[in-house]
């Protein structure tokens, strides 16, 4: 009864083109934002903030990045983690080498480095498609991690490329507690998610989707596939880059190139498959799911075996459940959790009188 759009008329195209055209959605969204910005910092423990909420936010951002490239522009990438690494090491070097470099600027510059690298590795997409391209992005994955390990300049000559993030300070204010780091991450992710939403509902986004759905027709209608693909690579890598920098600065503190391996790239891919390919909100749902599942499994296993857990069972079970879920979602609900959410909303519109 509460969720109805009846009686809400759109008198202008501007009203019709809002992100949340239905009033209840808008109110719900404001409530969620309020919960995350105000309520959670007050009630969540340090463990929740640092070990769950911050990584969920950061992975959401990376997943948005991959979703732009794969979900919207239709170019599959298996190198997301490598672009995160570029962002992390980029931001690190900007702060290290330029005195007084503001944190936010370094973050964005790190993202821009990733964007530039992304465009370079996206160039093959102009000639090759589908899994040929997916395999080509593996070149980025292996090459970038290798380069970050082999050239000590990137990590300021530390052994095996380990970097320790500097303290985060904005306008003299230190972000040194989990609550503050969480709020900073949340603010950045929220702004970038809004930007992503704007991009995908504008000409840029339509260009991406057109190239995804049928590139020959896109060209005939006057969209340049080359430009659409390269901007998708650039924007996607930018998002991954910023996510990588946050990964180093507000989540782990210390990172090494090998941490940004193929497994991490797969993880991000799984987030968008489970969350919803081609959906910004799906990126959040998927990230939350993938971060929470192992924790949940761990708790469940401990409860089940009460400490006498067979070695390796947890990690194998995780592999099986991840793999199984991916297949399950691809077969049963290729649009992921985001689509389930939508179906739920459509049911809500009719509730409690479905006929």
């Amino acid at each position: 009864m509460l969720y109805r759009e009846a009686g809400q008329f759109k008198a202008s195209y501007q009203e019709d083109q809002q992100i949340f055209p239905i009033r209840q959605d808008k109110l719900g969204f404001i409530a969620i934002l309020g919960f995350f910005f105000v309520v959670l910092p007050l009630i969540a423990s340090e463990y929740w903030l640092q070990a769950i909420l911050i990584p969920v936010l950061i992975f959401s951002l990376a997943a948005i990045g991959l979703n732009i490239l794969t979900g919207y522009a239709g170019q599959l990438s298996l190198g997301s983690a490598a672009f995160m690494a570029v962002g992390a090491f980029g931001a690190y070097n900007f702060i290290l080498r330029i005195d007084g470099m503001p944190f936010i600027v370094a973050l964005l510059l790190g993202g821009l480095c990733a964007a530039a690298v992304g465009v370079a590795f996206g160039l093959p997409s102009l000639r090759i498609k589908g899994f040929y391209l997916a395999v080509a992005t593996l070149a980025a994955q292996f090459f970038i991690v290798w380069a970050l390990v082999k050239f000590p300049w990137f990590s300021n000559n530390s052994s095996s490329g380990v970097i320790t993030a500097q303290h985060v300070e904005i306008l003299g204010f230190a972000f040194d507690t989990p609550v503050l780091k969480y709020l900073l991450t949340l603010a950045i992710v929220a702004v970038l998610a809004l930007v992503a939403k704007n991009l995908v509902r504008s000409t840029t986004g339509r260009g991406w989707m057109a190239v995804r759905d049928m590139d020959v027709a896109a060209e005939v209608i006057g969209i340049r596939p080359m430009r659409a693909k390269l901007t998708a690579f650039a924007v996607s890598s930018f998002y991954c880059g910023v996510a990588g920098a946050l990964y180093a600065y507000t989540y782990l503190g210390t990172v090494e190139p090998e941490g940004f391996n193929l497994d991490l790239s797969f993880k991000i891919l799984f987030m968008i498959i489970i969350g919803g390919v081609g959906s910004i909100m799906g990126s959040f749902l998927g990230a939350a799911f993938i971060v929470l599942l192992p924790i949940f499994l761990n708790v469940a296993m401990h409860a089940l075996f009460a400490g006498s857990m067979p070695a390796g069972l947890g990690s194998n079970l995780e592999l099986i459940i991840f793999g199984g879920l991916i297949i399950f979602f691809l077969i049963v609900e290729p649009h992921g959790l985001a689509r389930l959410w939508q179906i739920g909303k459509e049911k809500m519109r009719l509730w409690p009188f479905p006929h």
Partner: protein
Amino acid sequence: MGFFFEVLIGGLLSGVLYALVALGFVLIYKASGVFNFAQGAMVFFAALTFVGFREVLPGWTGLEADGNFVFWLAFVLALASMVVLGILTEKIVLRPLVNQPHITLFMATIGLTFLIEGIAQGIWGANVRGLDLGIADEPVEWIMESADILVSKFDLFAATIAGALVASLALFFQYTKVGRALRAVADDHQAALSIGIPLQHIWAIVWAVAGFVALVAGLIWGARSGVQFALTFTALKALPVLILGGFTSVPGAIVGGLIIGASEKLAEVFIGPFVGGGIEGWFPYVLALAFLLVRPEGLFGERHIDRV
């Protein structure tokens, strides 16, 4: 110069192994249009199942652990497991996804990779096992004496097995009824169905054959570097081979494998020292990529004309 040839031959021999894994990809791709990322996991599963059976069989049957009989029984059981795995994959994973975009199928096989890895380790455990096929990894003496080049006996043996397998598969698909049907299916599913080729039957056979190829590859790789999780990465070695050779070409997989194997070893030895080494991981990809930009359809692939 002797050193150069040594590296080259070593590279070519491992190239044969890459070709073997790549062949598994090509078979499945030709028959069902699926780019099976899980091929590497299948190699791991096959090797682990073989080693696992070899460990438990003496206990179950009271047979001598090192005997030939146990070896072959384990081989047959592992092969049977691979066939079952292949058929299950085809039925449970791929059939519901028929007519989905290629990319979706590809992502499904990534999920399958995780699933197979988890199941394999769940059954047999995750510890690294040695695997002895009875061939020592020592230089072949007469080559060393006559040409002063070190060529490993084991590598030579592995290459012979792989070569024989590739040749027999090529013959099988060229001259048997199943082979003809397979080629028809590869050309056009609908047309093949309409002239009465049992599509699902063919798919099951192909997955079984791919399982067999994975088992052979798993045994050889496992004997060289131990049966361990890293075997799944053989898939990553095979991918550049496929790009180079084209996804649909058996000769492409072989030639591509040889090129990748040789060039990666040569690059590691002769270019590696200048940039800090360890370039084997990405060099094949960059090589394949550079090649792709010149010839997007691969060495033996067919040029595709977009019709609108």
